[in-house]
Structures are given as C-alpha cells and as structure tokens.
C-alpha cells in the first residue's frame, strides 16, 4: 500500500509541479519555464541565495505578484474541494455526493453573498468573517438537505441528490436575487457565484492554507475508518468504528473545506465529484490512497481549468465554474448512468 502510494504520489507531485510551471507561464506575456522556475526558486528560503537573477524586474512582478499567487490559490481550492468530495462520498457511501451536488457550496455562497450585499465581509473578525459565515450556512444547508432526504434511519442515494439539487437551485436563486437587488456590488456577487480566482493576491492563499492542511490531515487520518465503513455502518461498528462520530466529523470537515474554498473563489462545481472518481478508476477504492491523491489531482485539475478560464478568450475571463461544469456535468451524467446499474448505492 505505502509503496503504491509513494509511486502514485511522486508521479502526481511531479505532474503538479510541471503544471504549475507551465500554467504560470501562460498569459498575455508569455514567459519561459526556465525564468519561472528561477523566480520561484529565488523566493524559497536557503535555495534562493544560490540563484542569480537574470530576468527582468517586470517578469518578476508578473510572476510573483500576479500569476503565481493565483495558481497557488487554484492548487488549494482544487485540492480542498477534491478531498471534501472524497470525504463526503466515503462517509455517505454515495458515489454522487460532493460539495456541489449536496448543496453545501451553494449554502456557503448564500452566507457569503449576504455579507457582500450588506458590505459586512470584513466585519468583526476581518478576513476570517467570510469563511466562518460561509461555513455556518454550509453546515446548515447540509443538515437541511440530509433531513430532507432521510427516510427513517436511512438516507437513500437518489433522494439525497434530489434534495441537494433542490436546495442548490433555491439557494442559487437567493444569491441571484441578492445580486439583482444590489446596485454597487452587482459585479462582485455575480462574479463570485460563478467562481473566479481573479485578482485574489496572497492574502486569500494565506486564509485557505490552514483550512486545507487541517482538512487534509484529518481526512487522511480517517482513511482506514472510511475503508471499513464501505462494509456498511453496522459492520463497521462491529469492527470498532464509532460510526456516528466518524460521519459527523467527516461531514463537518468536508463542509469546512468547502466553505474555505467557496469563500475565496465562489462556487466551483464538480471538482469533488470528478477527481475522486477518476482516481478510483486508476488506483481502486482505498481511501488511504484516494485522500492524498485527490488533493494532488484536484490541484492539477483546478490549475488547468483556471488557466483555460483566463486565457482561452483573453482578455475576457470565462467564469471558472463554467469551465469545470463543461467537464464535470457530462461526467456526472455518466456516473448517474452507471449508478443505475449498481442499484444498492454502493461504491463502484
């Protein structure tokens, strides 16, 4: 297992580094990878001293102040959403669960849209206000969706997704309404609901980083329990898993990760769905592999999606949620089709 993880993870990290280097170079001013690597290495402690700058100050400005923070933010957002999706799928034993389909993303976005609408996004606790409120409304939405879908002690796959979709469209309407009502902030809310990583700068990366690290460590530490849970809740309890506590904590952490991502980037769908599934096809169902590899996979996916979003029709930016939906929605349809054959709602 650990050998398999080492092989896949090192391949994945190599791919991620390459992705970051290439995508940082793409833009209105195209820069060679050599310079990018140089500039990035130059900013590393210790290593930086060994490199003599032979690039222009303008290039350094573009890379370090504009493009790299954005790419890094894409890494964190993609990784957060992907592991949140993996966690939701594991704990609900439902292959269609992800922050977007469960309505958690939309729930978080409603809280954030309210703050933006009333100009309160920095009230009380500064830059942490938005993520905190997004988390609370995300949790509330998840709770509501799950109680809506519950039939007795069970939560059937299809009613869960249905409840999620209902909540998602309702909350989406709330956000649209808020953006219509608002005169001066209209662009901010609309832009934000469709997902964007534009003009975020380093501070957002700094907000998201602790969320992501805590989430990753927690979910990874629960990987074995999630594996056992695949046997069914009762069987998992018989082997010593505290099922209720596991479910609650993973759902809460998944929601926290989603809220963190949503509060810096808006609603970006399907990442949490597509990435864990592609990895399942590649490496199998073991969460000890799926959690860390989803982080890497989600990061790579998001960096490319954001690069497409900002460069395909440059200087017009395509909303990031549009790009991920173009990839994600057909994939979702495929899963739904496949899931019909697996009537029990088990993992494929």
């Amino acid at each position: 297992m650990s050998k398999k993880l080492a092989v896949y993870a090192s391949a994945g990290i190599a791919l991620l580094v390459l992705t970051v280097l290439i995508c940082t170079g793409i833009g209105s001013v195209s820069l060679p990878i050599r310079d990018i690597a140089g500039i990035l290495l130059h900013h590393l402690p210790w290593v930086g001293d060994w490199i003599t700058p032979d690039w222009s100050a303008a290039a350094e400005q573009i890379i370090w102040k504009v493009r790299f923070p954005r790419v890094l933010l894409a890494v964190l957002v993609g990784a957060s959403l992907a592991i949140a999706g993996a966690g939701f799928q594991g704990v609900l034993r439902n292959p269609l669960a992800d922050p977007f389909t469960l309505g958690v993303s939309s729930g978080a976005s409603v809280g954030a849209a309210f703050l933006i609408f009333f100009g309160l996004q920095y009230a009380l606790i500064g830059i942490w206000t938005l993520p905190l409120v997004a988390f609370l409304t995300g949790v509330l939405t998840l709770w509501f969706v799950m109680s809506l879908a519950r039939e007795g002690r069970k939560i059937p796959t299809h009613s869960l997704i249905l409840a999620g979709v209902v909540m998602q469209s309702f909350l989406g309407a709330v956000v649209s309404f808020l953006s219509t009502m608002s005169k001066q902030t209209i662009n901010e809310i609309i832009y934000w609901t469709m997902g964007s990583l534009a003009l975020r700068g380093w501070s957002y990366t700094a907000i998201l980083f602790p969320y992501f690290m805590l989430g990753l460590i927690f979910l990874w530490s629960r990987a074995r329990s999630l594996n056992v849970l695949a046997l069914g809740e009762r069987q998992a309890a018989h082997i010593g898993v505290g099922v209720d506590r596991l479910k609650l904590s993973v759902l809460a952490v998944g929601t926290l990760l989603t809220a963190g991502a949503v509060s810096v980037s808006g609603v970006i769908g399907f990442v949490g769905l597509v990435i864990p599934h592609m990895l399942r096809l590649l490496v199998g169902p073991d969460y000890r592999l799926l959690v860390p590899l989803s982080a890497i996979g989600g990061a790579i996916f998001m960096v490319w999606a954001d690069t497409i979003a900002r460069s395909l029709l440059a200087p017009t930016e395509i909303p990031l949620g549009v790009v991920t939906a173009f990839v994600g929605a057909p994939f979702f349809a495929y899963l739904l089709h496949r899931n019909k054959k697996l009537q029990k709602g088990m993992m494929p």
Partner: protein
Amino acid sequence: MSIDSDEPLFAVTGAGKMYGSHQALDAVDWQVTEGDWWGVVGPNGSGKSTLLQLLAGTEQSSAGSIRMDGRDITSYSRKDLSRMIAVLQQDGLPAISYPVRDVVEMGRYPYQNWLGRESADGAAVVDRVLEELGLTDMAERPLDALSGGQRQRVALAKVMAQEPRLLLLDEPTTFLDIKYQLQFMELLSTWRQKNSITIVAVLHDLNLAAQFCDHILALREGKVVGNGTPHTLMTEDNIQDIFRVKPAMVNHPDNGIPQLLLRREKE
C-alpha cells in the same frame, strides 16, 4: 486473559428491548460460559437478532443488564468490544471492489492506532487466516469478483483476523447452498477447537444447530422458552411449543443426535 472458571463470559439478566411500543425482547435471563457453542433458535420475529445486537453492543437494552467479564457491556468502548466480540451477519459482505486481503485486514482495525500500526504482527495474522481458509490464491482479487460462497468465506476470514473471544453469528448460512453450509460450519468448528472461542449463532436450520451446538436457547415472542442441550430440547413437544408445527423426530444414524423432519399439514 485469565478469568475465574465459574464466572460466566457474559450474563444477561432480565434484559428487555422495546422498539417504540413493540416489545422485541422481554426479561431474558441467560448465562454463557467461555468455550461454549450456543445456537439461538426461534420463529421469525422472536427477537433472536435483537438479542445478538444487544450482545454486540450495537443496540442498548431498555431493561435489565448485560455483563461481559463481570462489567456492564455499555461501559466498554466500541474498540474494546471489537477486540473481544466479532459479528458475522447473514448478508455477509457487500459487493465492494476492495481486494480480499484488504477486507480481511479490516478485521485488525480495533488493534490499530490512528496511523494504522499495531503492536502485534497483524500482517502475520492476516496471512495465517488467508492460508487457513484457502484464500491465499485470491488475496488480490476484488471482493465483487467472488461468488457468494467465497465471499462468505472472506467474511469469516475477516472475523477470524479480529481474533475475538466471542463470535456472534446471525444466520450465517442463509444464502449458502448445502455444500457451503456444511463447509462453513466445519470451518467454524475447527477454529473453535484451535482457539477455544465462544460461539453464539442464530440459526434457522434446527438440524444444523443440533449437530454443531452444545447448547440451544429457544426464543418465542421475545421470551426464553427453552434452554438446554440438543437432546433435551429437540423433542416433538418442545418444537411444537416453539414453532407451532408438528414435526417427526428421528435420531441421526451416525451419532444419534435428534433431527427434525417436517410433516405436511394436509395429506
């Protein structure tokens, strides 16, 4: 694990269980000594599975107490219980795509810390169990590629890897054909002789119960209506009291154990 020889492994005292207004179990008294093999029999809805869930600690009794090693069962943590008690359910394992070895290794979960390490050599236990059940060759195959009988063998391997002192079985042979039923019971029997574990098995098949179990507990409508050896319990009158059918009893030609034949109600 030394315990007093006259101290029972577990003692059920006046245990009752209500589901809403339905009394699933009512004032059950029962003691099991370490090393015994018990069969629990009774008609559908008599509370057999509920009793098993109470013993497993996954349901809590609404009246009375269940003590394990002299301690109330609710005072154990989920992990502590799982090191003592393993449960095998009638539906066995779901068709998941985890390889056989990974599933068997899940039986080691209660012994592992949060990093997945354990003080004993868990991998050796898993290897030995796979070998004993003839699963070594299919260790890397995904569970959903196996037949029902093979899957039930993996389920048994998983509970064996758990190294319990008490094994609870809920109609483990329901979905198996007679060859696999017999094979399954023999595997249990071998395991029990080797490791002197205690077995409590809810069984539908009275003949199988009589052949393999030392003691039988009979339930009807949540109450204990019989408690004894197969010889004392498997009589025509008792069977009629418990199941409301009139059987014909014969003795097994090999070993004289009472066996039941069904009679047509209308000739």
